[in-house]
């Protein structure tokens, strides 16, 4: 297993997290330099810029795996190095308190601490983000959304916060707002194919949700979603999520496009682009291509070919499932 200690991928699996947290004793070993008297310890200390990134990541992994002893030691070292008033350290200390909080009351206590801190120093972004995360994990979604909106008002170029807000809106089925947030991320990172795919997903969900009330607009949303998926594939070849979505959305479009109401081609007061609806042939060809590519990916991944083994296991299984369902359908 290869997990980068300095910058682990954002979505660690359980095994990877466990592996990271097991590195803790090794990292916590006191170096010889630390035992030397003052001027020598500075001269021979081998602190690099990566040292503290490693500490942070292992600390987070330890919190996740419940290795509180190591986590506390790592946190103490971070505090000793950067001081109590460092913003990041404050957020990490908050996480420690959160992990220790067992009842609702404890959580509220931590929240109050955050609040007091933010009143003292309103620019403390790490603590502000912790507060929002805690609100979210306590299930107080509307409050978290209010806080996030306030946060984004003062820091509108924070892609992380926008994506968090988008996910919160999706969880509330407020797809229109989620689409807005995802577009905001695309303005910040125009070539993030995963964000393009996510935007396509949410657009598709939106189209599905309004289909019964406003089929014309729903079809336009699906066409937009299809184009978004195309863009994400254009940006990243063999992007499984992109092909999976493209296949789903084209299949749905093939069902509804021939019977599209007139209002679907009305481009003036649509919330989506003024591009004309795609022709049925194009959608058909896209559907064929995506099926072909998806089958290709699944086959080569199953054969463990070189360069094809980086896919998420769950995603590959889902893709195979989708393909199998289709095949059965054809047989019947």
């Amino acid at each position, binding site marked *: 297993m290869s997990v980068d200690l300095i910058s682990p991928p954002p979505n660690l699996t359980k095994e990877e997290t466990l592996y990271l947290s097991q590195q803790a004793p090794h990292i916590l070993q006191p170096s010889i330099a630390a035992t030397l008297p003052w001027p020598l310890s500075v001269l021979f200390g081998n602190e690099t810029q990566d040292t503290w990134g490693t500490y942070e990541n292992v600390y987070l992994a330890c919190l996740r795996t419940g290795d509180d002893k190591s986590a506390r030691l790592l946190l103490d070292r971070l505090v000793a190095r950067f001081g109590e008033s460092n913003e990041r350290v404050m957020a990490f200390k908050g996480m420690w308190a959160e992990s220790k909080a067992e009842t609702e009351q404890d959580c509220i206590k931590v929240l109050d601490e955050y609040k007091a801190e933010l009143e003292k120093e*309103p*620019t403390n972004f790490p603590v502000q983000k912790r507060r929002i995360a805690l609100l979210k994990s306590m299930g107080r979604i509307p409050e978290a959304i209010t806080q996030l909106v306030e946060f984004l*008002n*003062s*820091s*509108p*170029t*924070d892609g992380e916060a926008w994506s968090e807000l988008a996910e919160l809106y999706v969880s509330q089925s407020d797809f229109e707002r989620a689409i*807005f947030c995802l*577009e905001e991320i*695309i*303005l*910040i990172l*125009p070539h993030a194919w995963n964000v393009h795919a996510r935007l396509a997903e949410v657009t598709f969900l939106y189209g599905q949700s309004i289909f019964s009330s406003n089929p014309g607009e729903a079809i336009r949303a699906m066409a*937009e979603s*299809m*184009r*978004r998926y*195309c*863009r994400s*594939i*254009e940006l990243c070849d063999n992007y499984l999520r992109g092909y999976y979505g493209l296949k789903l959305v084209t299949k749905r479009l093939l069902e509804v496009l021939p019977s599209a109401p007139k209002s679907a081609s009305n481009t003036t007061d*649509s*919330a*989506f*682009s*003024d*591009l004309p609806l*795609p022709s049925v042939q*194009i959608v058909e*060809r*896209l559907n064929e*291509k995506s099926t072909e*590519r998806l089958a290709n990916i699944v086959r080569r991944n199953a054969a463990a070919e070189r360069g094809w083994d980086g896919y998420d296991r769950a995603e590959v299984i889902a893709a195979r499932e989708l393909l199998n369902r289709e095949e059965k359908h054809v047989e019947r």
Partner: protein
Amino acid sequence: MAQPLVQTIHRDPALFYWILLPITVVMILTGVLRHYATVLLQSTPKKQPLPKIRENRSLMQGVNLRTNANHISSTSFQARKSYLVSGFKSGAFLADPEARGKPPANPMSDPAMMEGMMSMMKGNVAMMVPQTLIMGWINAFFSGYVIMKLPFPLTPQFKAMLQSGVGTRDLDVRWVSSLSWYFLTLFGLQPVYNLILGNDNSANQVAAQMAQMNPGAAMGPNNDPDKLFLSEAENLEVIEHDYILNGIEERLLASLG
């Protein structure tokens, strides 16, 4: 055919050990010392208040929208454009809406500015003091020595550069005086510092002085945020929107073959 006359000067080898080497070593060590002094003297950058952060980031949002407008649909773009343009024009994002239209404040009266000036002064002192001291040291002890001979010939124009402090007209250009050696090390040690201290060191004072030549460039951006907002609003208004998803299906099908 007479050979061109080669000047020979019999130098005491002690000149090498007691002048050339000390000057070089002292110059390197001062550079290292200066680097660490600058690091120590640097004050931590002052935190910006929240409205100022908001102002900067809103401007960045405008810039982002302008550069990446083609990646979102025209409806979304128009909505964002009208929001940002009206906000920019009315000064809704300004950190200090009252100061709109007033001339920029005198930098001397602003404590934040004073702090910046202070740090610059500190840097200056760290640069100037060692330079003066070493120059004085070399002048007092080693002036007038010829300490080395370059292994290659040079044109007479280099005489002023290589033989400062030695007023002998007929001396071959290849001979280098101690004061000139000081200057050569002063200007030429940057690669050595890079080797010892890493790339972003502040050991070389020549580079630091270059940076000081145009302090206006560093201060320019915070001149008048209102003007920046207005010009950004203008930029946004004239932008032509060309949606990137236009014709994407054909593009993708063509690339997939």
